[in-house]
C-alpha cells in the first residue's frame, strides 16, 4: 500500500508508516514539579523535567562520553543516547527525562520510561559534573517522579557499572526481582517497590520547592560546559 509522503522538515515521513511505527510518546502525564537540591559544594542544582525538543541538545552533551571506557561511561552514555534519541524520534514509549542544572550549565541527565501504569523501567543516570553527588540526587528525583507524580507501584532497575551498583542499588537496599529481565538485558533486575521507596524517602529523596522564579527562568535553557575530567586523547 502506498503511503502519502509528507515533507516534515528534514525527514520526509510517510504518515501511514509513522502511524505503524511511531509510538504513543505524547502521553498526557503529570509534570514533575521542579525543585532545587543543595550540593556538597554549596551550589544549588535545579532538577526539572525536559521536553522532547531538548533531546538533541542533551545528545550533544553526552556525545564526548561515548568513548570514555573507564567506569563504564561509554556503555551508559551510549545507551542513554539511544534511549533519548528513540524518545525524540518517537520510537520509545512513554519515556521521560529529568536534568540537573547548576549555574545555567547541564550537570546531569536521568531517564526512565513507563512500561505500564504499575511498572516503570529505570534507564540511566549520567553525571557530567563529577564529585558533587549529582548522580545520587538525580537518581532519587526520577524515582520520585515515577512513584509520587505518576503513581507507579514498582520500578525495575539495573546497573552496568560497579559505581552505579554500589551507590544506588546497595545504598537504596534494593531487592533482586527474580524471573524478570530488565529491558537492557543485563545480569540481574532489582526492584524499587513502594515499600522500599517510602522507607528510603526520608533519607534519600529531598529538595526545596518551589524553585525561585528567576532561577527557574534561568534554568529553562542550559549551556553545555566542556568536560574537563575527560582526558583529551
Amino acid at each position, binding site marked *: 500500500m502506498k503511503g502519502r509522503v509528507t515533507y516534515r522538515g528534514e525527514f520526509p515521513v510517510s504518515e501511514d508508516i509513522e502511524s505503524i511505527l511511531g509510538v504513543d510518546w505524547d502521553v498526557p502525564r503529570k509534570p514533575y514539579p521542579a525543585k532545587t*537540591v*543543595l*550540593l*556538597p*559544594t*554549596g551550589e544549588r542544582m535545579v532538577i526539572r523535567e525536559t521536553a522532547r525538543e531538548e533531546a538533541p541538545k542533551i545528545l550533544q552533551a553526552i556525545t564526548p562520553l561515548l568513548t570514555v571506557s*573507564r567506569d563504564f561511561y561509554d556503555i551508559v552514555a551510549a545507551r542513554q543516547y539511544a534511549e533519548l534519541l528513540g524518545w525524540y524520534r518517537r520510537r520509545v514509549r512513554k519515556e521521560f527525562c529529568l536534568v540537573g542544572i547548576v549555574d545555567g550549565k547541564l550537570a546531569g541527565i536521568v531517564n526512565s520510561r513507563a512500561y505500564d501504569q504499575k511498572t516503570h523501567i529505570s534507564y540511566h543516570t549520567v553525571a557530567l559534573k563529577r*564529585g*558533587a*553527588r549529582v548522580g*545520587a*540526587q538525580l537518581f*532519587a528525583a526520577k524515582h520520585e517522579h515515577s512513584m509520587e507524580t505518576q503513581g507507579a507501584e514498582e520500578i525495575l532497575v539495573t546497573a552496568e557499572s*560497579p559505581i552505579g551498583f554500589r551507590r544506588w542499588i546497595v*545504598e537504596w537496599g534494593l531487592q533482586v526481582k527474580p524471573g524478570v529481565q530488565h529491558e537492557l538485558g543485563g545480569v540481574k533486575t532489582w526492584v524499587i517497590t513502594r515499600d522500599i521507596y517510602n522507607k528510603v524517602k526520608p*533519607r*534519600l529523596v*529531598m*529538595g526545596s520547592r518551589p524553585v525561585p522564579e528567576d532561577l527557574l527562568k534561568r534554568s529553562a535553557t542550559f549551556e553545555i560546559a566542556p568536560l574537563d*575530567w575527560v*582526558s583529551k*586523547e
Partner: protein
Amino acid sequence: MTKFGRHDDKTLIDLMVESSLRALEDAGASEKNVDAVYAASMLAGELNNRVAIGSALVDQLALIPAAADRVENGPASGGSAIKNAYCGIACGMYDTVLVTGGEKMRHVPGETITDYIATMTNIEAEYVHGVTLPSLAGMLTRLYMERYGLTEEDLARVAVKNHLNGSKNPYAHIQQPIALEGIYGSPEAEVNNPMIADPIRMYHCCPVTDGAASVLLCATEKAKEFTDTPIRIAGIGQATDKMAVQDRKDPAVLEALRVSAAQAFKMSKTTPQDMSLAELHDAFTILEIVESEDAGFFKKGAGSKALRDGVTALEGRLPINPSGGLKARGHPVGATGVAQVVELTWQLRGEADKRQVKNAKRGFSCNLGGFANNILAFVLERS
C-alpha cells in the same frame, strides 16, 4: 611533585620520573650525579605489577651507578624513605640523595584498594573479622565522641577547611571548595555525605589518588652548591605501637605519635609552640584532630575546639594542612610522606603562593603507616 589526581595515561614510573626531574631541576641538580635514590611505594607490586622500583627509577633517570632501594612502610613509605635518606647522608655514606614517593591507584576498584590497605591491620585479630581502615576510624571517632564530646560537625569542618586550602593548591587532587551545609546539617547532607563506617562519612575520608612527590637531600655543608634557600631537616622521629588497635594501652591515644613527635622536637631542640605550620596525616578527618593533640599542639580532647576557633585555618595561629592535606591534596599512599615535606619546604621558602603561611619559619609533619601503629615525624626549619 606531579599534580595529584587521576593519571590514566601515565604509569607509576612515569609519575615518579616526572616528579624526580622536577625536584632535580628545582635544585639545579639536573646535570649532577646523585649518590643514592630511595623509591617509596606501598602497592607497586599489587596494583602496578612492578617490584624493585628503586632500580627502575635509577635506570630511567640515568643516574646509574647510584645506590637504589625501594622503601615500603604502608602509607608511611614516603616518610620512611626520607628518614633512610637522611641516615645515609648523616652517617657519611652519601652526600646527595633523591627521595621519590609515588603511587598509581585510581585504575583499581575502590573495594580492592580498601582490601589491600586493610591487610596492614593485624590479620588474625582484625582483618579476618572484616576490619578495614575506615572501620578503625569509625571506632576511634565513636570513642572521641563519647569521651571528649567531638561532634559530627567537627569532622565536617576539617573537610571544609582542607578543601578550601586545596582550592589554592594547583597540585591538589581536589581543588573544589565544599560548603559545610552541603555535607552536614541539611537534609541533602544525608545523600551528599553517606555513611561509610558510622560515624565516619564519605566526606570525612581522603580520596584515592595517583601521583608522585620528590625531594633532594644533601649534606648540610654542601647545601650552598644547590640553593641559597636550603631547608634543614632539623628533627626526625619514628615510633611504633601495638599493631592491633585493641592492644593499645588507650585506643584513643596515638602513642606512636606522642613518642615520635617528642623525638623530632628533641632532636631539633624545638617545641610544638615553635612551629609555624603542620602537615598532618588526615586520611580520615578524625585523624587530623587527634594528631593535632597527640603531636603536642593542643591538650587531649581540645583539638576540635581549636579547629572551631579557627586556630588551625590558613590565617590562624597554627595552620594545619595548608596544602589541603590528604583530604584535598589527595593520598597516593607512597607519595604522601614526601609530599608533606615538599609542602613544608615550599612554605618555609615562601613559595606557597595563594596558600602561603605568613612568616613560616618551622614546620612539622607526621606520616602514618598502618592505623597509627608506625609513625614518622619531621621538623623542618629555614636555615
